[in-house]
């Protein structure tokens, strides 16, 4: 990493940028089905924002709109000061270099080893790195998730929890400013879920990332959230600290937290 890039990343992670994501009146429909009706939220610099909601409430659609995988039907999404809806393909590509996305299934490339999986985005995002520097960053990312020994394994040889951790390593290896987690603990046993939640917290502290975590896992929310938003029927139902939700008398929220 040259001095200019180091300085750029450091300044962008500093408190100079207060709001990293600003979403206003977001709308998204699939045919006649309105998934996001009128969603407005902000992600502040350095915070973990947990988005709760029932299955089908539009949580995954929300973060896919943020990163441009889906086109919103209305509203605006500003990421690091750029309006996602107005970006050209190459501009979107540049913005995505600053965003890490952890998919629900992990989405590791089946035909590549763990090492190749981590090298893949790194070679494209950080063309300035030498082969030795790439190897060092790959090992560092694997050490951070506690899976250095899996470096030459194929994804098919990994357990579900290991795959999730390797996917997380692949996401953090490019040193993103923003992390988007799509159901990071879904399908995992309680012990592994807690490990992933702890990793998410550690990533926030070590890499100084700002994150949106989509989940319906209350325990994950407890371990990672600085602030919580609940989506219901395509809109923001409630927003605030986790305690606000846990002490709420609202029937919907009580039912959600009880389950």
């Amino acid at each position: 990493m040259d001095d200019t890039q180091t300085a750029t990343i450091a300044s962008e992670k500093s408190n100079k940028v207060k709001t990293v994501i600003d979403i206003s009146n977001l709308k998204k429909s699939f045919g006649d089905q309105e998934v996001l009706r009128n969603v407005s939220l902000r992600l502040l610099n350095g915070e973990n924002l947990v988005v709760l909601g029932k299955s089908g409430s539009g949580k995954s659609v929300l973060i896919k709109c943020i990163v441009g995988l889906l086109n919103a039907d209305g509203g605006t999404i500003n990421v690091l000061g750029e309006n996602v809806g107005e970006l050209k393909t190459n501009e979107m590509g540049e913005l995505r270099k600053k965003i890490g996305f952890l998919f629900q299934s992990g989405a590791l490339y089946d035909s590549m080893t763990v090492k190749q999986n981590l090298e893949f985005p790194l070679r494209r995002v950080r063309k300035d790195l030498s082969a030795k520097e790439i190897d060092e960053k790959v090992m560092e990312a694997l050490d951070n998730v506690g899976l250095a020994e899996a470096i030459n394994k194929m994804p098919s040889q990994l357990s579900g929890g290991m795959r999730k951790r390797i996917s997380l390593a692949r996401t953090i290896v490019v040193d993103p400013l923003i992390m988007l987690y799509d159901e990071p603990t879904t399908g995992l046993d309680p012990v592994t879920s807690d490990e992933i939640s702890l990793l998410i917290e550690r990533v926030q502290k070590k890499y100084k990332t700002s994150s949106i975590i989509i989940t319906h896992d209350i325990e994950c929310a407890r371990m990672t959230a600085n602030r919580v938003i609940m989506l219901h029927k395509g809109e923001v139902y409630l927003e605030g600290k986790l305690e606000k939700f846990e002490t709420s008398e609202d029937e919907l929220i009580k039912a959600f937290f009880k389950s």
Partner: protein
Amino acid sequence: MKDATSEIKPRSALLKAKKFTLKISETTFVKTAEVNNFLTDFADVLLFITRTFKETFSRDFEFREFLRQCYQIGNKTLPLISVTGVIMGLVLTIQSRPALAKFGADAMLPGMVAISLVREMGPVITALICAGKIGSGMGAELGSMKVSEQIEAMEVSSTNPMRFLVVTRVVAATLMIPLLILYADALGIMGSWVGANLKGDVSFILFYSQAFTHFEFIDFLPAFIKSIFFGAVIGLVGCYKGYNAGRGTESVGIAATSAVVLGSLLVLIVDVIAVQFTDLL
């Protein structure tokens, strides 16, 4: 007193007319929707081909992945094509010999087999085999990548998935399938020599010289050109079906099988079109 029957008749006739009109409108609606879907799919295919063509000539060609695909397509299909080639030549020789013997034209056997293999049988049968192995492989691989969000993961990591996944495969198929066809032709002629020696004794050198005595460049060139189109079609169809697979594991199977079916059909259609041009030469 009114006749009850005469009152019922107009009502039932009206009801029948109403049902008939409804059926016509439902059928029209369904057919219109089918035509609409066909036109939409056709537009999607044209858009896919245009994007593939555009990305092929953009900078940042994924050369390393292209070489890997060439290895996958070429090297891994070699055993199957080898068997196919030998059997083609062997069977054609065994089946043609009695007919030629009737006319006292045994000596024409090597030449006839060589020309048949190189002009038509070799390219078409090899391309059909490739549509099954390579086309279905591409459809299944890209389909499962689509289902498991790997294509989206690629897009989010600032990689153009069309360029990395589709272009490399289509270009590799366009390059390697003609080479595989040439290889199959050569093995086919060898298989024909084996077939000729089952009921005779012909040296390899004599057989080959007889095979190419009447062989002209015009027998080779159109076949080679159409094999390039076969490769492109198989690559495009396999990638299109996989890249546009739906959600769920069932869609992976559908992508793979439809890639084979459509790829095979298009190989035959391209062959028919190519024959028209060849006939003019």
